[in-house]
């Protein structure tokens, strides 16, 4: 029995995935999570620290880490890189003037050793607001086709309406599942298990 088999068997028991939600401030990371969890999104404050959400999605338990995107918090992102199976990069599709900033931060992440191998989903959020950039435009603006180091996909969505959020999550889960467990996502709705909000970092 090779080492790989042992590892696979071990992970099969757990069937857990660790997903990291990152992006510039005002992208809508927390709102997406709250919406997925069927929580009230009208009271979402800019994240001062981080949130953890645990969902059961299909056959898998997802541990989702949502870290605040304010410039001052970005240096802390690296504290969350360990053992990340997938990175979800949330983009405010209306924020044309900060696309360069957004691209730079994303590319810094992709250089990170500890994120090597993690699947990348780009959520083009806020597609409900007039004047948004389409997923194709964002794909170009962020030069996603230039990414060779990670499996990536871009999905346009709206956290406010909930449109396409589950589709995005499905892609992430099936992508990670095929990589780690050599299996696919079985059908099943997202069932929230628990959510907690630990206090702020420093």
């Amino acid at each position, binding site marked *: 029995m090779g080492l790989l088999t042992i590892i696979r068997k071990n992970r099969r028991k757990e069937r857990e995935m660790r997903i990291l939600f990152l992006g510039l*401030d*005002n992208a809508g990371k927390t709102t997406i999570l709250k919406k997925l969890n069927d929580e009230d999104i*009208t*009271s*979402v*404050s*800019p994240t*001062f620290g981080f949130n953890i959400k645990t969902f059961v999605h299909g056959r898998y338990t997802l541990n989702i880490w949502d870290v605040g995107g*304010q*410039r*001052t*918090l970005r*240096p802390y992102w*690296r504290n969350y890189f360990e053992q990340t199976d997938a990175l979800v990069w949330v983009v405010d599709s*209306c*924020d044309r*003037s900060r696309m360069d900033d957004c691209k730079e931060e994303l590319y*810094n992440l992709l*250089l*990170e*050793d500890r994120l090597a191998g993690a699947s990348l989903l780009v959520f083009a959020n*806020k597609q*409900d*607001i*007039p*004047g948004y950039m389409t997923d194709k435009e964002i794909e170009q603006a962020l030069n996603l086709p230039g990414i060779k180091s990670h499996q990536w996909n871009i999905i346009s969505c709206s956290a*406010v309406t909930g449109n396409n959020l589950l589709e995005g999550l499905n892609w992430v889960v099936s992508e990670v599942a095929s990589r780690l467990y050599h299996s696919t996502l079985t059908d099943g709705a997202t069932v929230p298990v628990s959510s907690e909000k630990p206090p*702020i*970092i*420093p």
Partner: protein
Amino acid sequence: MSETTDKTFQRDFYSQFQTTSDNNDQQELALDIRKLRKNLTDAIGFLPAYDQRQCRAQMDLLERTLEDIRSTFTSKTKFTFKRKTNVALPSASPVQSHSPLGSQLLEKRDGLLAIATLNKLSSHSHRRLSLHGTTPHRNELSLTALRIHDLKETILILPNVKGSVLLQNLHRCTVIVACHQFRMHNSTGVHVYLAATSNPVIEGCSSIAFAEYPPFVSLLNPSLTEALPPNGGHVNVQDFSHIRQSPSPNWFILPPGSEDWDDILILDDAPSKQIDAILDTHLPDAACSDAA
């Protein structure tokens, strides 16, 4: 390892900074920073790429801080010297020079600014910007997100924004807004009259005053204040540039009712000569944004 190196850098710097700045010995401080820079260069070999970047950024910041200290030091002496000579001048004169009379008034009447033109509103110095429409358009003015940047000396009266408001590079402005989320970056000398459903956030800002949403706006245009978020949220400001237990030095609260807005209501009837003067009274003091 790298974590500790980072922290050591910081701790060393701050302790040295404290002692040396107490002695006003900039020379020594510069020497220490140079030494630190050398240490960093030596350490490059065993630091991972990310930490290298972080440390370099921190080094740059230190050097910039020192530059700032030097410049404020020199400008301060200049300032006292000037004040002694100019002591007889009326205090209003710096305000005049800072905001020339020719500065334009964007709208004289209750005009509707289309959302399209709103996109282009940047890098200008306007005196007043009201996003309230004339009657037929009233119901159409519903914003879900608002982003404003690079404004100087402007009074912004904004509608109730359903989503988030992001302000960037505002200097000496007065902003009246109701929204769901409020963020402000890199701004100085701004008075914010705010009703928000979540905690307002500032980052890289200084001399920011927060106050509750003034009731006069509903007299200006009732549609602006439909379904207004509850007042009082303005006291829960979070300053991301000051993540400590101590209160942030970058913002403060204006007492309620400290501003009299009656003259804004009758602004359109005022002689055009007076408009600038009236608007000027509603902007933050020029001195406070200059100092920042």
